[in-house]
């Protein structure tokens, strides 16, 4: 049933907290190399759905595979194949840029040589040469976010999950961030990204919009705009989210 080019396959996936269905029978597929936008208002269930896919939350019912592995039984195999950047900044503030890279490279099982190589590449790409030995706490938020994204790509995952990666950063940094996302996608990494910024939704290959635990719409930004007869994704979102 699973097509080869679908790296994420979700069928009727639900998560209940008591009587409350945070995620209510969602189904969708994400193709390899795609930038998939996962939109929805606060509390719509985006983060809960994402946590099931990255193997840190068990679904209540439904089926899903990520990178070909089952979200119930093969969470540890999933984790080898994905990268994740949470909406909370999750690098160590009290370690330096270099130490963070070494640590995360190390626990993904990269060799010393690989870590060294990756670190050089990453530092150069982000222009962090001056601050490699500074504590991460001293970096501006935008730099931190870019660093976190790069760290999530250290072990060259097939899919990377980004939970509101650009929350709270300035428009220039957001632009740079999306350039990084494009570059990763260009290298074959599948991007699964949640966001509040509707202009960012326009950058995605396809987007889904979640309302109250359900996926209400899923298509390319162009087709969604046509279907809802609006000019911007912002208006599509408002029409759906307001019901």
């Amino acid at each position, binding site marked *: 049933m699973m097509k080869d080019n679908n790296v994420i396959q979700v069928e009727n996936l639900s998560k209940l907290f008591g009587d409350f269905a945070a995620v209510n029978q969602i189904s969708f597929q994400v193709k390899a190399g795609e930038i998939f936008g996962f939109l929805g208002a606060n509390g719509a269930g985006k983060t809960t759905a994402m946590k099931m896919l990255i193997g840190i939350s068990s679904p209540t019912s439904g089926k899903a595979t990520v990178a070909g592995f089952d979200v119930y039984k093969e969470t*540890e195999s999933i984790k080898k194949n994905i990268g994740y950047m*949470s909406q909370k900044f*999750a690098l160590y503030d009290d370690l330096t840029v270099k130490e963070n890279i070494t640590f995360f490279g190390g626990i*993904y*099982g990269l060799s010393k040589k690989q870590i060294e190589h990756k670190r050089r590449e990453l530092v150069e790409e982000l222009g962090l040469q001056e601050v490699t030995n500074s504590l991460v706490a001293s970096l501006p938020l935008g730099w931190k976010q870019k660093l976190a994204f790069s760290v999530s790509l250290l072990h060259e995952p097939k899919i990377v999950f980004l939970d509101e990666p650009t929350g709270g950063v300035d428009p220039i940094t957001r632009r740079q961030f999306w350039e990084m996302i494009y570059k990763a996608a260009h290298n074959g990494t599948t991007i699964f990204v949640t966001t509040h910024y509707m202009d960012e939704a326009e950058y995605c290959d396809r987007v889904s919009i979640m309302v109250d635990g359900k996926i209400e719409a899923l298509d390319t930004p162009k087709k969604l705009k046509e279907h809802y007869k609006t000019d911007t994704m912002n208006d599509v979102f408002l029409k759906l989210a307001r019901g």
Partner: protein
Amino acid sequence: MKIILYIIKKEFKQIFRNKGMLPIIFILPLLQLVILSNAATYEIKNIQFGYVDADNSSTSRELIEQFEASTYFNVSEKFPSEKEASQAMQEGTIDAYLNIPTHFERDLQKDKTKGIGVFIDAIDGSAAGVINVYITQIIQNYNKNIVADLIQISDTVQKPNSIESIPLFWYNQTLNYKTFMVPGILVLLVTMITLFLSGMNIVREKEIGTLEQINVTPIRKSHFIIGKLFPFWIIGMGLLTIGLILAKVIFNTPMLGNLGLLYAYTSVYILVILGMGLFISNFTDTQQQAMFIAWFFIVIFILMSGLFTPIESMPKWAQILTEFNPIKYFVEIIRMVMLKGSGFVDIFPLAIKTLAYAIVMNGLAVWSYKKTT
């Protein structure tokens, strides 16, 4: 294995980078060792002592002189009547007073026995017990002297031989309370620091969100936990070492047993505490919660450890509860090894229980640590 090393390195960097934590880990506990060991003593000195002497005879004056000569009593006041004496005790200016009745000397010489009133402030029951023993000893010593005098006067009368007990205190001949307390307090410090640090460490990562980041990596639970706890194991052993050195240098506490045995036991003991810390952090979401729960257990463990009050005098149910108190085992063993020179065979029954405890506790901790919720 390599992964564990990465975690250990990272933990040590974070611990030693935190300039606020270092003194808390190393200096505060050692200050406590010095202060508590000097303060926590059962010895009662400077007892404020008054008396009423209605007899005003040479015998009564000599009896009072005995008290004045004692280092334990500060004879503060002679009260004209019992009313004033009782008033003074009410106000708390004296801890005990003696009421010598009229005709004390005459009756003593005539009847060879005479009652004397002893009044002790018993708000602190155990202190009152100790004061009572001191007073009784002084009076009896003095009383015997009188008896001896009487014998000299009338040799003909056969007196019954009085039985005197001569106490011999083994293992701590001079009854030096510091010798007794220092090892116990050292146990407390090692326990508290390792429990608090390990309990708060993982929950801290939960708070700042880095634990989630760890949980999406393919790292194995056991690797993560070993890497996380090992640095605190080292710190615990380090604290023990510094504590033992201070005990020797400052308090001259004896070390009769095998130092290696003590270290071997401690290495197992700290595992129990680290398992507990991890267990606590698995069931809490904030450092504050973890701290309160750790405190809850620590207070119970300390008070029921036999450190301040003997376990033998606790009610039966409490004695059963102390079986689950790791501090109890360590306090007993450190005293046995340091003060009695006990060997492996002597501590074996306690050590095997500690080992079982460590296995159960760490099993629970690893089981309850969930990468997936």
